[in-house]
């Protein structure tokens, strides 16, 4: 049986993990390679590396980092952050990334989805959507790391992107992100029930019950979190054991 996936996310800046982590098992917690390998060892099903570096040397430093990660880590990983062109994708995939994620650039020029899917296969193209529920009770797409609102509904954009060839959707609820009060179940389920691609839920996971809820009520195929793993508030082996005991298909 295909299992639900648990995905730790590492934010990277200038080749280092942003947000301090405090793991006794890890010599250098700022080293994304070491942290990623630790999560893989702990039973993470995949990893996401999100590069937030804003320098001109970014492409080179990122591809070098991805290459080191690919040498070390024996589970799949996705790389995102500022990917705009086929050349960006080609370099990252050749460096050893399994998938790439696109966000703002794809919204501004949706044809890149089509081109990426055609050239590299839908299975390696993940669409990241930053979503916010406004007072009118509708979920809107936000761009540029959540700084800029658009008038596009999340459901519309997700559907268009699937038609263009996206292989997976990483949905982050800005309303829930950082709250540790649980994932956005309604919008996640709405996408999960209507779209033919897997949905990765992100934002709000604070305890084991939240993950159970997003896999059941939220219909998510995978759940992503960062700080609760970094700060050991939730340990991946405990989380997976909990989900398994509650009857969720999970890899132990």
């Amino acid at each position, binding site marked *: *049986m*295909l*299992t*639900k*996936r648990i995905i730790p996310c590492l934010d990277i800046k200038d080749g280092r993990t942003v947000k301090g982590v405090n793991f006794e098992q890890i010599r250098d917690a700022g080293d994304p390679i070491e942290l990623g390998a630790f999560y*893989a060892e702990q039973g993470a*099903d995949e990893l996401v590396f999100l590069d937030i570096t804003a320098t001109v040397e970014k492409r080179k430093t990122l591809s070098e980092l991805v290459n080191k990660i*690919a*040498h*070390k880590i*024996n*589970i*799949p990983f996705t790389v995102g952050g500022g990917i705009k062109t086929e050349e960006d994708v080609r370099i990252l*995939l*050749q*460096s*050893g990334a*399994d998938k790439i994620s696109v966000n703002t650039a794809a919204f501004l020029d949706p044809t890149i989805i089509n081109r990426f899917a055609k050239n*590299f*296969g*839908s*299975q*390696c193209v993940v669409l990241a959507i930053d979503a916010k529920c406004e007072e009118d009770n509708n979920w809107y797409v936000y761009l540029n790391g959540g700084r800029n609102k658009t008038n596009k509904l999340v459901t519309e954009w997700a559907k268009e992107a699937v038609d263009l060839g996206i*292989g*997976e959707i990483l949905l982050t609820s800005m309303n829930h992100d950082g709250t540790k009060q649980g994932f956005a179940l309604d919008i996640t389920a709405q996408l*999960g*029930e*209507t779209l*033919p*691609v*897997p949905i990765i839920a992100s934002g709000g996971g604070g305890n084991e019950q939240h993950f159970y809820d997003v896999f059941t009520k939220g*219909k998510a*195929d*995978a759940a992503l979190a960062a700080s609760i793993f970094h700060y050991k508030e939730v340990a991946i082996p405990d989380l997976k054991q909990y989900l398994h005991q509650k009857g969720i298909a999970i*890899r132990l």
Partner: protein
Amino acid sequence: MSLVIIQYNAGNIQSVLYALERLGVQATVTDNLDAIQTADKVIFPGVGEASTAMEYLQERGLDKIIKNLKQPVLGICLGMQLMCTYSEENDTNCLGIFEEQVKLFKPNEATIKVPQIGWNTITNLKSNLFKGVSDEIFTYFVHGYYAALGEHTIATTNYIQPYSSALHKDNFYGVQFHPEKSAKVGEQILQNFLSL
């Protein structure tokens, strides 16, 4: 031991190379016909689309070379599918090593996603490729097409229906999942192939 990874227009070749490096084995990535024919073992990896991959192989004469290899050959994902007779993916005639046919997953309910992406179990393990690997272990899959069950099936996975997650005939082995991305069990399977 000389180990060759066949280079062609498909993805994930680097990942296979790095996984072998983690096992302490240096492989050569090449499309050179002589190098492939004289290697002790050959890996035929791939993530991609069947018809363009077959065209590429045919243009370079790789199709005839591969199916006549005598040393152990391991096809991975698309590599395994190309070793079958026929793929529904763009109506493609493949290498014809395994008689099994490759078909498109057809979801029987709305919540089933295609391609299958993620970790699923392999069962009914029937080959020394799986020596030391326990039944119902999880491996990592990314695929929209599957090889049907047949006489060469040596591992079965269930997604919508049971299908061949590994095939074996003579010196040819194929796995639908990605051992290079399947954590420790994947490393065990690659090690087993190297030990054949």
